[in-house]
């Protein structure tokens, strides 16, 4: 569904991505794990059109979307729940939801109203707070609102950047329950996480991103959770016992020694 081929991108003079190649299968949950500074958020921002890649291509549903502006990417059906900048704080919950549906508000008001009801059925806690300013919600509620708003755009691909960041363990459980529910309802999900334990429980396929390159691609179970955690949290050097899929990756493996 989403094909990323050899993407390189930089933040100012710092090269954050050095040729990342990966793909997201339709109907699945794909996770991207990696330590801080590996380039996960940069990759999300590049797909969303906020950063322009220096080289490489991004295609979505067989159409090239490289270098498209963010509003264009959203129109193609990709919604991003960004890290840390979740909601419009001075707008109430309902207004935040509607914000996600502006593209279709002119055409199908009734459908948008129906979607609001759907979203409220899924997130009853948001319904209780319809008129509350989004900035006064708890961290978990803001995360839910951000996910709910992204759903209002009826995306074909939902990208989430660290949805568990800074949330209490119980809230994290709830967020991941929501991710499972969304997937069960047919949403394709591309998830960036640091919480490898939770991510490996929901992922159908996962990638490890280390120092701007994909260093592992495979299914949960192909790499022990222990090793994933070591590499995803600590950026620990790869062990000798690499799985076969590891070597299939064009640019990830065997780059660092010692």
């Amino acid at each position, binding site marked *: 569904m989403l094909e990323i081929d050899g993407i390189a991108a930089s933040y100012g003079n710092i090269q954050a991505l050095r040729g990342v190649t990966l793909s997201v299968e339709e109907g699945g949950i794909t996770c991207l794990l990696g330590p801080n500074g590996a380039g996960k958020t940069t990759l999300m921002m590049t797909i969303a059109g906020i950063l322009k890649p220096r080289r490489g291509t991004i295609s979505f549903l067989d159409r090239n979307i490289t270098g498209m502006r963010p509003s264009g990417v*959203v129109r193609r059906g990709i919604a991003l729940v960004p890290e840390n900048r979740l909601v*419009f704080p001075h707008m109430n919950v309902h207004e935040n939801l509607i914000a996600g549906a*502006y593209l279709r508000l002119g055409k199908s008001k009734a459908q948008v109203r129906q979607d609001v009801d759907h979203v409220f059925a899924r997130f009853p806690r948001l319904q209780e707070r319809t008129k509350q300013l989004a900035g006064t919600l708890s961290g978990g509620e803001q995360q839910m609102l951000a996910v709910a708003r992204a759903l209002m755009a009826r995306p074909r691909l939902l990208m989430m950047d660290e949805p568990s960041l800074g949330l209490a363990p119980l809230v994290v459980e709830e967020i991941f329950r929501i991710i499972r529910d969304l997937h069960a309802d047919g949403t394709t999900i591309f998830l960036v996480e640091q919480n490898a334990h939770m991510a490996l429980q929901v992922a159908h396929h996962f990638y490890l991103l280390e120092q701007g390159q994909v260093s592992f691609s495979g299914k949960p179970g192909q790499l022990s959770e222990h090793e994933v955690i070591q590499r995803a949290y600590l950026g620990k050097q790869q062990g000798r016992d690499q799985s076969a899929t590891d070597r299939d990756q064009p640019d990830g493996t065997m780059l660092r020694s010692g």
Partner: protein
Amino acid sequence: MDDIYLVTVVSNIGMISFIALSAYLLLVVGEISFGQQAFFAVSAYGSGIATAMWGWPIWLGLLWGALLAGAAALVVAIPTVRLRGLYFSVATLAFAEMVRLIFEIFTYQVEIDGELVGPDGSDGFRDIRAIYDSNVSAFEYMLIIYGLLAVVLIGFLILERSRLGAIFRMIGEDPMLTEMQGLNVTVYKILAVVMAGVVAGIGGALYAHLATYVEPKIFNVMLGVHALAYGLIGGLGTAFGPLIGVAIDIGLLESIRAISGYRMIVFGGLVALLLIVRPRGLLDEAAVHWLRGRWRELRRATH
């Protein structure tokens, strides 16, 4: 009404309200403009030329001035709207100073009834006498000012409840997150700058005809700074905010003679204090939200 001083003060509050609303609209989309006085000036000159030199009726002169200001705003918007924060502010300031300096050298005069009429560089533009020639009294003109202000204010209140108004607020809160909702932020910002230009223009045209005389130095940066401060004092949660700011400054500080000498000191202090205590003004978003909640309760209780 014979208290001409009071009429003048009230008229001034009305005219300055337009430029305050103009700066407020840009504050809503998250931009600080130090240059709204430029659009005020363009319209003051443009409408004055239309009525005093070309003999247009007043209403057409006002319309022409406002449209001219909107066009000038479009010229400014296209190259500057991609600039953020300080860069946008500096660009608007530079443009406004450019406009002022152009009027310092702009001379365009024709002879009417044996007298030269029209802008004469730094000597200004005299005899914009349309309202006196058509026997509109100061009191009637005040009513015209407030009639137009009411129209613009109603426009703002409708905007606040509209989709466009919500998009403007979203851009003000987080342009990148707005873009991620599939909205082209650049286009909406250009629209906001043009709308703000037109609103400032209405004020400028009204001003030129009340004063009958305009000169470039009236439109210096202090006018724009005040326009900006009115929204910051009164609040950015509703269009009534900047009007409160104008009422406090011109209604109280400038017009009460005992304290008018200290106006700038008190005004500056007030801005500094509010920026610390209430960074988004007296009627900020939270206050407006609270008021709307109380209003809903009240209506429910009475029904």
